[in-house]
């Protein structure tokens, strides 16, 4: 399906080097990629493989040391504050630790109100704004009436992650980057969060980029999987191709290291 779709975000030779001399770390090492409109892509690798660094580059939070990013076919230009703001209307992110993503001194309704303002809804009548916020909360099964006047830290981890998704519902970005969105919540609530993300993708037709160390999760949600080892993409392809017929030893190891329920989990490899 990827073949017929338009490319929305791509990169060539993207590289990030931190430090120099003895502290020099090549966190992202000449990666090439093409993410398509509406596609669900996963970037999978062990911790320290460079996933978050790449995510920050994609978001424009840090600059690559080398390489180019293309957004909707054009070389991405975020050199001015204004251009950055414009870019962030198109690409948004959800991070691992939902608590770090909020300004703890802002109440939840103002967090949501900001999203409406970012989308140019500043001059909408107040009742309309409230209706939009309530709709976004309903989408993730939160009750807006119960959230008004609360601070983000008054919510549970799962509620926070749902509030993050409600924000995205209001922002309607073209691309959503989710960096380990379910690793802080227990396995039982994970399905709920994934469901909301997939529903959201279907509702607003965005490209979803999952960043995860959980290869099972990547297999479940993605159309395309990129495997990252020490800053490089060592393998990519359709989820079935990569997970069921892995070509690289590294991919095979990632798969063999997670517990299975249908096949034997071979403990002799460690």
């Amino acid at each position: 399906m990827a073949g017929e779709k338009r490319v929305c975000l791509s990169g060539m030779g993207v590289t990030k080097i931190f430090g120099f001399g003895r502290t020099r770390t090549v966190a992202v090492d000449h990666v090439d990629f093409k993410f398509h409109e509406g596609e669900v892509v996963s970037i999978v690798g062990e911790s320290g493989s460079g996933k978050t660094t790449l995510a920050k580059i994609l978001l424009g939070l840090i600059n690559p040391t080398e390489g180019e990013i293309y957004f909707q076919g054009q070389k991405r230009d975020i050199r001015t504050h204004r251009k950055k703001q414009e870019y962030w209307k198109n690409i948004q992110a959800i991070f691992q630790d939902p608590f770090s993503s909020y300004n703890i001194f802002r109440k939840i309704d103002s967090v949501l109100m900001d999203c409406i303002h970012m989308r140019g809804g500043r001059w909408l009548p107040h009742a309309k704004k409230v209706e939009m916020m309530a709709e976004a909360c309903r989408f993730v099964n939160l009750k807006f009436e119960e959230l008004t006047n609360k601070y983000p830290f008054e919510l549970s981890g799962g509620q926070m992650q749902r509030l993050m998704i409600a924000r995205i519902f209001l922002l309607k970005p073209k691309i959503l980057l989710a960096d380990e969105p379910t690793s802080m919540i227990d396995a039982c609530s994970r399905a709920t969060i994934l469901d909301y993300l997939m529903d959201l993708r279907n509702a607003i037709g965005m490209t979803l980029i999952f960043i995860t160390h959980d290869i099972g999760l990547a297999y479940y949600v993605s159309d395309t999987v990129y495997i990252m080892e020490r800053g490089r993409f060592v393998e990519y392809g359709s989820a079935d191709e990569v997970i069921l017929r892995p070509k690289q030893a590294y991919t095979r190891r990632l798969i063999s290291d997670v517990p299975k329920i249908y096949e034997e989990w071979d403990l002799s490899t460690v």
Partner: protein
Amino acid sequence: MGQAVLEVNDLTTKYITRFREDIYAVDHVSLRVEEGKTLGIAGESGCGKSTLALSLMGYYFPPLHYVSGEIILNGRKITGMKPDEIRKTALGTEIAYIPQAAMNALNPTQKVINFIEDVILAHNPTQDKKDIYELARASFEVLGLPASVLHKYPVELSGGMKQRTVIAVSVILRPTVLIADEPSSALDVTSQKMVIKMLKGLMENGFIKAMIFITHELPLLYNVADDIMVMYAGQIVEKATAKQAVFDPLHPYSKGLMGSIIVPESGLRSVKLTAIPGAPPNLKKPPAGCRFAERCKYVQPECKVTYVPLYDAGNGRAYRCILSEKTLREAYQHGW
């Protein structure tokens, strides 16, 4: 049935909060752990797994309090014993507990060997330090840990190595039962695998006789446990073999949990994950009827009002639901 090393009958414990509220986090729990077996405990966070683990040691300190029930450890009733006596005669030697996130609680200014000395001297104050070192070294060798770790500080060890060290220290006095509470949750998959391999080897190597393994990660539990107990809101809602629990769950909550399993195996992509809507009840005021009723797809009017006991389904299997096994299985197969 094999020889029981730990038997718990109708145990209830509670937290008393600062505001003098009671939280019944372990509510009439019975279980049996046999020699050579691993019992797995599953359930979402907040359901009482860690509290159960603490309660099983019979050693209570505020805010946790004993309410009723009995614990029989190695044929000896430990409920009703003085805390000091339990500490001296059971903790570490008959039952050992690795708390959640234990590896992050290691004293950063102590070398691993000093830490082991503390553990052993607390149990036997006259033990010679040379003997302790020898014992530690020998144990580490059997468990596949380098002896050099003994001379390191916690910060010098990787997460996986720290956790394996914590496990090695926990079993140094050869406890009969080891309780491991989410021992690999914070680790990457490769370190997790090493930790699991080590835990599974403890019985073979004669360090322990039985294990209780706690996690919310079901594929992991499935691979470690012989039997699985599913907990919900302080109660056991299902007891079964690991295979039954994963592939033929009876309780609607267990069914929901098993429907949230994610593994990189073919077939997974065609399965729709089932999310369980809503949240567990507040344990300060648990509902009178079935605690899962609020979230249950198969709820009946009486579920919300009548107390639901744990029904014995034979062969060690039990579940807490008013619907029959047949009705439940049919509902899962053909829809409700």
